């Protein structure tokens, strides 16, 4: 490694240390971790456990999307395509070649990165709403392709066969507790990455671009390259969550892992929680995911009528009009006033 000992220590410190955050945040974070750790032992109902796993999954998606959407300020409405790439890479490789789950994660992330790199340069010639529309279209095209193609299982999707006995290599466990801890590990890994990222040169330069592209360029920042790199990292992180989805739900189809709803829900968790902040995506997922699942249960078949979408739209409008920095922005303002 090119790093000297001191440099390496500095990098590790940047990854693990929260010392620049206020005390209250650090205490809150520890309480949060403890709750997640003991949760499956305290709560026994499988529905609540499933809600918890979905929350962690979407917090993971949110953390990843926060890179391009929050710190970068580029509203990407196509993250579902990357989730789909990850999910399909895992499912197809496990079904076709019986590849162990753990090995399927990297190819999924690699494909998402490569695809994003290929589409990024033309897309970043666009700005604002036009960029958002372009991301949305690319994701929709991919979804249609996955429906159309036979080798992906088409609209029927892919089913991962259930093994007769729990099998660690294929991520099939006897109890949901294992899935809980596994997604928690992925979540923590991504959180540590974000902790490093927000203090990195790339992180600062990306925020400068979000705030003012022309000023950023005058400070030696290659605006397009920085956006492209971030877009690719975001894609890889989305694919990682997608792989988990395939292994956890054991059945995927384009409507489940690649729909527009998913892209929008991911973007929304970040915006509701607070785009461009460390904790925003987690807060957003903690509110929206239980809301989504309980609304679904409560409305039952009525959900199809779109009542839940109406509620989301109302939330979205309120956030956009009154609290552009989301719930975390409200916290920060309260803290400042004191």
């Amino acid at each position, binding site marked *: 490694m090119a790093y000297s000992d001191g440099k390496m220590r500095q990098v590790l410190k940047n990854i693990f240390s929260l010392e620049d955050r206020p005390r209250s945040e650090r205490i809150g974070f520890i309480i949060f971790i403890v709750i997640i750790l003991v949760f499956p032992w305290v709560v026994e109902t499988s529905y609540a456990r499933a809600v918890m796993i979905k929350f962690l999954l979407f917090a993971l998606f949110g953390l990843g999307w926060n890179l391009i959407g929050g710190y970068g300020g580029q509203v990407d409405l196509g993250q579902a395509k990357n989730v789909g790439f990850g999910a399909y890479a895992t499912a197809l490789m496990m079904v076709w070649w019986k590849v162990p789950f753990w090995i399927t994660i990297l190819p999924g992330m690699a494909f998402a990165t490569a695809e994003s790199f290929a589409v990024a340069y033309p897309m970043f010639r666009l700005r604002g709403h036009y960029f958002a529309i372009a991301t949305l279209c690319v994701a929709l095209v991919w979804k249609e392709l996955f429906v159309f193609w036979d080798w992906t299982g088409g609209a029927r999707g892919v089913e991962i066969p259930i093994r007769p006995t729990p099998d660690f290599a294929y991520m099939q466990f006897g109890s949901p507790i294992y899935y809980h801890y596994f997604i928690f590990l992925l979540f923590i890994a991504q959180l540590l990455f974000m902790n490093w990222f927000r203090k990195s*040169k790339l992180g600062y330069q990306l*925020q400068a671009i979000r*705030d003012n592209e*022309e000023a950023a*360029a*005058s*400070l030696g920042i290659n605006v397009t390259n920085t956006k492209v790199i971030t877009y690719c990292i975001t894609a890889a992180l989305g694919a990682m969550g997608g792989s988990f989805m395939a292994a956890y739900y054991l059945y995927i189809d384009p409507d489940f892992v690649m729909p527009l709803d998913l892209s929008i829900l991911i973007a929304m968790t970040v915006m509701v929680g607070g785009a461009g902040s460390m904790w925003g995506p987690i807060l957003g997922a903690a509110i929206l995911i239980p809301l989504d699942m309980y609304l679904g249960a409560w409305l039952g078949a009525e959900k199809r009528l779109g009542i839940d979408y109406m509620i989301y739209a109302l939330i979205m409008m309120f956030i956009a009009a009154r609290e552009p920095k989301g719930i975390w922005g409200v916290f920060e303002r309260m803290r400042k006033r004191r």
Partner: protein
Amino acid sequence: MLLEVRNLVKEFGGVVANADISLEIERGMTVGLIGPNGAGKTTLFNCIAGYYKPTGGKVFFERKEITGWPAHRVAKIGIARTFQGMKIMPNLTVEENVMVGAFCRTRDRQIARKKAQEILEMLDLSQEINIYPTELPVATQKRIELGRALATHPQLLMLDEIAAGLNPIETKEIIQILKRMKAERDLTLFLTEHVMEFVMAISEVVTVMAAGRKIAEGSPKEVAKQEKVIEAYLGERYAKG
């Protein structure tokens, strides 16, 4: 020769914003660029700094041709600028704004932060480090933008109307700061300005533009006497008087 502009032309559609501009800036000089509204001063700045691609002509920096380079490469080679009407990053603190400038020369956050703190201290902004710039008065924001440009460690600093909108006391403060900066660092300044007292007080050479052309060049005193310059500012009627 630090900067050389040779026969630079910039057209927008049929409108000629810069016609055949040539100028030279020696290392260590302070050069003022003046002219009435619409003379093409900011266009010239944008052509040099990589925000516009010149239609014709060439730009050299330390004898190296940089014509048409993108802005980020121009910054890396050692030309920093501030903007007319300011472009501050509102969601980054004062310190972070300047740190982003310092990241032009380092990957290391600690080094960037240290450099930012040094510069902010020089600009009397040590108290404002953790404040968001939009909460501060315009004069302070201008100093932050100046510090941010300085943090990229430039050889040539281009200031686009840095004194616009400042009252006489604040203008004097900025002049003090610029003089101190120049003395402490090996800096060359190139500035456009409307405020005459400001340009005349600080520039060693003044270049005058009108209607896209360079019409005069010389020491501030010489230039102020020239008929063409008075005509450009006040109209033909006053030129003879």
